[in-house]
């Protein structure tokens, strides 16, 4: 895996070192965004922030399996889609409460990750990439065949999820803060997992699976658990996505979505949870800005990606670390 990228693993727990300043700043920025948007009367900023948060939850989860376990999953969008469809289908059947929909979204994704994970973990490297893609495509095509729930066109959700019958999430701002809370929880969970013995086994297996097996760890079982957790958090992201757009469609789980998420974590810096969040923000902001410039914004964005890979190893996190070193030596 990209060597220097996995340096930013700190200890779990509240603000213990300067390493924890960055995530604190990131979350503070997210928390202040709606206030800033309100003051400057730029409501669309909250929508953009919302999209970034949804992607960031999925990206942080994906980084757990890609960055720390070293397993490149190309089917992450399936989990998001399953979570979103759990919300959509329950709502269509008259159950619009988050107390049911949220656990359902997470449980369905975890179950799917567990069943497919047993098969996926038999393979390695590129074969793992392709088999996760295969399962992702299967779910995609199943979703397109659900005539009762919109088929190809997708399905509009009547109303945002309620909590215990109360429409607490109705206002966009409240839902924004609810989502931010989910992002913080996801971040802290992954952070704690990585710092734990479990996380060290995962990282050890990434560097040298044979050695870990020789020490006596059943590497596959650890990786499977990580995959299931990643899946569950993907489901959480799907729950947020369905509720923020009040719409679900098979397009949520197209393989391009999975590709986009991989781009996001690489852009931010693989194996750094902060990088996954920064990558989501950078990707969506650049997309937004460039698509305002020209219809074919990918003509600019594509070469930009190539340049990041060629000259900024370790993504934005690697780039900022490099700049920081240069500055502190000067």
């Amino acid at each position: 895996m990209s060597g220097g990228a996995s340096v930013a693993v700190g200890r779990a727990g509240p603000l213990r070192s300067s390493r924890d300043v960055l995530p604190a700043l990131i979350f503070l920025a997210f928390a202040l965004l709606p206030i800033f948007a309100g003051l400057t009367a730029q409501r669309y900023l909250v929508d953009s922030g919302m999209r970034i948060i949804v992607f960031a939850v999925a990206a942080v989860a994906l980084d757990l399996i890609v960055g720390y376990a070293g397993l490149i999953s190309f089917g992450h969008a399936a989990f998001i889609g399953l979570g979103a469809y759990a919300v959509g289908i329950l709502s269509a059947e008259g159950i619009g409460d988050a107390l049911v929909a949220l656990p359902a979204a997470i449980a369905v994704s975890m179950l799917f990750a567990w069943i497919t994970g047993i098969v996926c973990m038999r393979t390695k490297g590129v074969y793992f990439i392709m088999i996760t893609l295969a399962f992702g495509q299967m779910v995609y095509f199943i979703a397109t065949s659900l005539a009762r729930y919109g088929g190809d066109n997708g399905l509009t959700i009547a109303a945002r999820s309620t909590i215990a019958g109360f429409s607490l999430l109705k206002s966009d701002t409240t839902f924004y803060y609810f989502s931010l809370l989910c992002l913080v929880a996801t971040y802290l969970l992954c952070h704690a997992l990585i710092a734990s013995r479990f996380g060290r086994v995962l990282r050890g297996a990434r560097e040298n699976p044979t050695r870990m097996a020789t020490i006596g760890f059943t590497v596959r079982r650890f990786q499977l658990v990580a995959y299931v957790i990643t899946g569950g958090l993907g489901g959480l992201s799907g729950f947020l996505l369905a509720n923020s757009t009040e719409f679900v469609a098979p397009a949520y789980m197209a393989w391009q979505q999975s590709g986009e998420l991989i781009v996001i974590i690489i852009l931010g810096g693989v194996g750094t949870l902060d990088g996954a969040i920064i990558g989501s923000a950078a990707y969506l902001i650049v997309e937004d800005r460039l698509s305002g410039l020209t219809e074919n914004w990918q003509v600019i964005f594509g070469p930009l990606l190539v340049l990041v890979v060629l000259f900024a190893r370790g993504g934005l996190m690697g780039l900022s670390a490099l700049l920081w070193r240069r500055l502190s030596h000067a």
Partner: protein
Amino acid sequence: MTGTLFFIQVLNGLQLGVLLFLIAAGLTLVFGVMDFINLAHGVQYMLGAYLAVAFYGLVGNFLLALILALAAALAFGLLLEFLVLRHLYGRDHLDQVIATFGIILFLNHAVRVVWGAAPLTLPVPDAFTGSVQLAPGQLYPVWRLVIIGSGIAVATGLYVLVTYTRIGMLVRAGATNARMVSVLGVNIERLFTIVFGFGTMLAGFAGVMIAPIISVEPGMGTNILILALVVIVIGGIGSIRGAFVAALLIGLVDTLGRSFSVDLLRVVMAPSPARMVGPAIASMLIYVLMAIVLYLRPAGLFPARGR
């Protein structure tokens, strides 16, 4: 009647199969020899089709357009290799995926800027415009037979090249153990450039050949890339023989699945759900096939890399 229909669909499956093989052959060799994931291989196919349309507009002769398009596709592939891909050998797979993904984004939209978003068409060459009669009332276009024939010819040529020539021997050796070949004094980077250029040309050839029967549009290389990746994974990365077998398998399974899934399902369920579920199951078939193959043989049907 049903027998002829089945035969026609088998021919269509073969046609898709040889097309996939032309694309997968280069992909699997680049992958096998240099351990390099080149997602941009699909856009080479798209580029081949666009170049053929452009050159046909200039010279008005299909054969000449084919030759010019192949030369241009080769030149472009080598330029790409020189500018970007060369710097990514030995890097992490993820880096290669992202860089080549960036190239896909760029080219998919660059052709839109140059040729517009509307689909283009290329006429079937005059000599092959007709149809042959397979059974009373069942016509089959000659051009599709030409595609099948040329694909099989290329496959045979490739087989001879890989099995009986020195460069083929080096390619096979490189796919098995690239480092060992390098240690024995072979310039593996130059070998790779040759293999890459050749693979690019094959993908471009596939694009030119398919252009007369489909619409040439941006993004046409993306879905075929996924299919080609499925092919090389089922076949075993680095194996030409595996790519050939898997390409025909995928071509047939996909085509026959799409044609007959609804009819087959109607045997066990009511017509209207069968019409709904059938296409989804048909689209899923190749992925189910891949999952089963990888479950039973985690390195594909004909693994090339000897470890």
